[in-house]
């Protein structure tokens, strides 16, 4: 299996505030990696570091074999790296149509893109000219997902996509996201609070504790490490 993403000895944070120390991981083609850990352990920061939105002190990020550590985020995005942040993942002052337009690399393909979205998420079809601000939480989340998928990414990073949802719905969404791998052939990094659902749906797992990697390997192996999951994930 060839490597899509490789993170080597990453130390990252925000200016003087150091958050991550010595994180390494790999993501292969068509692989789902779950990132789990207690609150404040640096999961969101890891995604930001991979995407170029926080300070990297040392270590490197390789995407498709290219060192992208110093690249601005928009260039990473053009290379096929998708990122769905925890909050603020749509433009609320713009209409759904305008949001989708921005998601497309090539704006001239708007109608084609909208057709694709309407196929994947028929609910969005009737909302195209509404401002996102006026949509429900679930509808907004759908707009955000549509925006990421329209870009034909090879790797999509989700930061707690289920944060606002009831546990039962959350599990369905997690399974839905993991299924993207088979439907669209993408790889996924999934940061999740619902650790059990995430570990069951993923291939590999990274456990972060206070900014340091405590486990990196198969998801089922992590579920088998009774002490680790009990102490850090409360399972």
């Amino acid at each position, binding site marked *: 299996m060839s490597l899509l993403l490789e993170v080597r000895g990453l130390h990252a944070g925000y200016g003087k505030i150091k958050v991550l120390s010595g994180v390494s991981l790999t993501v292969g083609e068509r692989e789902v990696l779950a990132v789990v850990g207690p609150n404040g352990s640096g999961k969101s920061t890891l995604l930001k570091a991979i*995407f170029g*939105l926080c300070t990297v002190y040392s270590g490197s990020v390789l995407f498709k074999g290219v060192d992208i550590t110093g690249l*601005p*985020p*928009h*260039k990473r*995005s*053009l290379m096929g790296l998708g*990122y769905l*942040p925890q909050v*603020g*993942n*749509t*433009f*609320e*002052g*713009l209409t759904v149509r*305008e949001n989708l*337009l*921005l*998601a497309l*690399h090539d*704006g001239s393909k708007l109608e084609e893109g909208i057709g694709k979205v309407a196929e994947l998420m028929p609910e969005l079809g009737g909302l195209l000219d509404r401002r996102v601000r006026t949509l429900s939480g679930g509808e907004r989340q759908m707009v955000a997902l549509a*925006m990421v998928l329209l*870009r034909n990414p090879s790797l999509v990073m989700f930061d707690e996509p289920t944060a606002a949802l009831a546990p039962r719905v959350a599990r369905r969404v997690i399974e839905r996201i993991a299924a993207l791998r088979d439907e669209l052939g993408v790889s996924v990094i999934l940061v999740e609070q619902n650790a059990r659902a995430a570990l069951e749906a993923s291939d590999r797992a990274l456990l972060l504790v206070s900014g340091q990697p405590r486990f990196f390997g198969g998801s089922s192996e992590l579920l088998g490490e009774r002490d680790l999951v009990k102490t850090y994930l409360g399972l």
Partner: protein
Amino acid sequence: MLDVLVGALVYSNLLALLAIGLSLMLLTCRVSNFAHGDVVTTGLYAAYTASVLLRVSPYACIPFALLAGGLVSLLSFLLVFDPLRRAGGGPVTLMVASMAVGIIIRYSLHAYADVMQRTLGVYTRQFVLSDFELQLAGLRVPGVLPLSSLTAAVLLVSLYVLLYRTRLGVAMRAAIENPQLAESLGIDVKRVFAIGWFLSGALAGAAGVFLPFRVISDPDVGWSMLLPAFASVVVGGIGSLAGSVAGAYVVGFSELLLSYLLATLGVSTAYRPLISFAAIVATLLLRPKGLSSLWSR
């Protein structure tokens, strides 16, 4: 009285061109740009110089003013405001920096005015330009009235079309709302903001062309328009582009009509700037969202 109305309309046209740029710069970089008045003056001298060299009317040299104003504004963004914004500079830091930028532009223009006077042999300080007159509905009006109205209308409508009907405009509004997300979608936020700054400066530069037809001009003349321009932004509602334009006409007309009224009562016109101050204070106290609260929530 007709004179006052003509004056008020011309003045408001120019304020609108200035205020919308101030708003755009507030939105992109959170800077109250005190250098923006001096960008107006840059446009004035660019058009004046071109008109002397090419022996045509300054009105025909509006493109030079657009270009000069745009470039100066773009440079100030690239060299000063964008680096400061990235380094985490707050609104106060940026505002003080803008005062410094304004001083640099203004005194460069002072120096340039001397060079221009010597090499081209025209007055560059305390000068006015003579306008042509035309008959409009049986009234004699100065050319600056239709020309400044037309220029303001064309430029403001173009900006509207750009912002609301093109992908670049959608990207600009998106980058203003959420720069991080815009970056993550592959929008080059710095480039988009740079374009916004160029356009803001270009509009201000265009406003400069009309000033010498109305007021005695020198390298400080644009600076003196800054206060009413800020008043327009506040009256219109901070953060609203349409509001800034509406605010410009409210401030422009109130300032000229009120000071005319006061003058007939024997009060000195030296108190004129007070009207802008009063408009700012009254808006912030009574209706902080300004005119924009009338059409949006």
